[in-house]
């Protein structure tokens, strides 16, 4: 089935869990935050949340930034 992860189209297996998606993407789970269709998925639900076709998933983490982090409008999350 097709889903969208951080605006990139992705083909994944039916019934894929959020934890499975993160594993496929090669991402360590530490300090990651996942939104599915604009709803935050708590860490303890990664192993029980099943993705559906056309889901929009956002995978977010912390990067370097300060008071002085200039961020052009179009590159925000």
């Amino acid at each position: 089935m097709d889903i969208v992860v951080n605006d990139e189209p992705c083909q994944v297996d039916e019934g894929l869990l959020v934890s499975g998606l993160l594993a496929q993407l090669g991402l360590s789970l530490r300090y990651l935050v996942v939104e599915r269709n604009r709803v935050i998925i708590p860490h303890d639900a990664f192993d029980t949340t099943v993705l559906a076709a056309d889901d929009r998933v956002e995978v977010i983490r912390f990067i370097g930034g300060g008071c002085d982090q200039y961020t052009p409008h179009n590159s925000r999350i």
Partner: protein
Amino acid sequence: MIDVKNTTLEEQAKISAGVDPDLLVIAGMEFKSRLWVGTGKYKDFRETKQAIEASGAEVVTVAVRRVNITDRGQENLLDYIDPKKYYILPNTAGCYTVEDALRVSRLARTAGISDMVKLEVIGDEQTLFPDTEGLIEAARILVKEGFIVLPYTNDDPIVARKLVDVGCPAVMPLAAPIGSGLGIRNPYTLRIILETIKVPVIVDAGVGIASDAALAMEYGSDAVLMNTAIAGAKDPVKMARAMNYGVQAGRLAYLAGRIPKKLYATASSPEPDL
């Protein structure tokens, strides 16, 4: 001589240690260092780590962004900046609306590092000045949700007061536009904020060099937050150390109490006894 009999045990401990810890306390958290630093704009994570160590900072700000899923080899900032060693302060940099700032704050909290958020609602790309109307609204909502909201605000005493009124345990007025390095542009309004606001005041953004940081502390600011002044210096690690000293010197000078400014000379040597 200090009268040891009339001091508490705690005071005696401080005296025997030869130091007064002079802690900054915000929402029950105690901070020894009054220099807070950002983690943006460094060459690499190694330099980030070295500069933060040299700065002596305990509070380190980070931004919240999407993972680049097409570049999986990316290193994680938090592998270099250990959240067990530092207070990680997520910010809402890049948020131009209340809705965005709320969303990023909630995402940051979900990562499970902290309930603190450095709240930014930016009004304009060219100045990066805060949208203070949106800032107060977002602060009110986040405080109700249990966040410890540290708002990046203008050097406006009335806005600072309103932010305290909605429950912010500290306010963070700017010295000058973000990344400008101009130093404190409105010393008199900053001093009004320092006199009228009863929660800690952290000067945030616009500092250029160590004397700017020292001056902010000499006025009585409780801490200074900076990023570009260190990360953008020719030698960031050296500048981090300079800022560390600048903040400490300014704080000590504030506590020591300056002499009044006078128009005429006052001899510093005793009058000759002739």
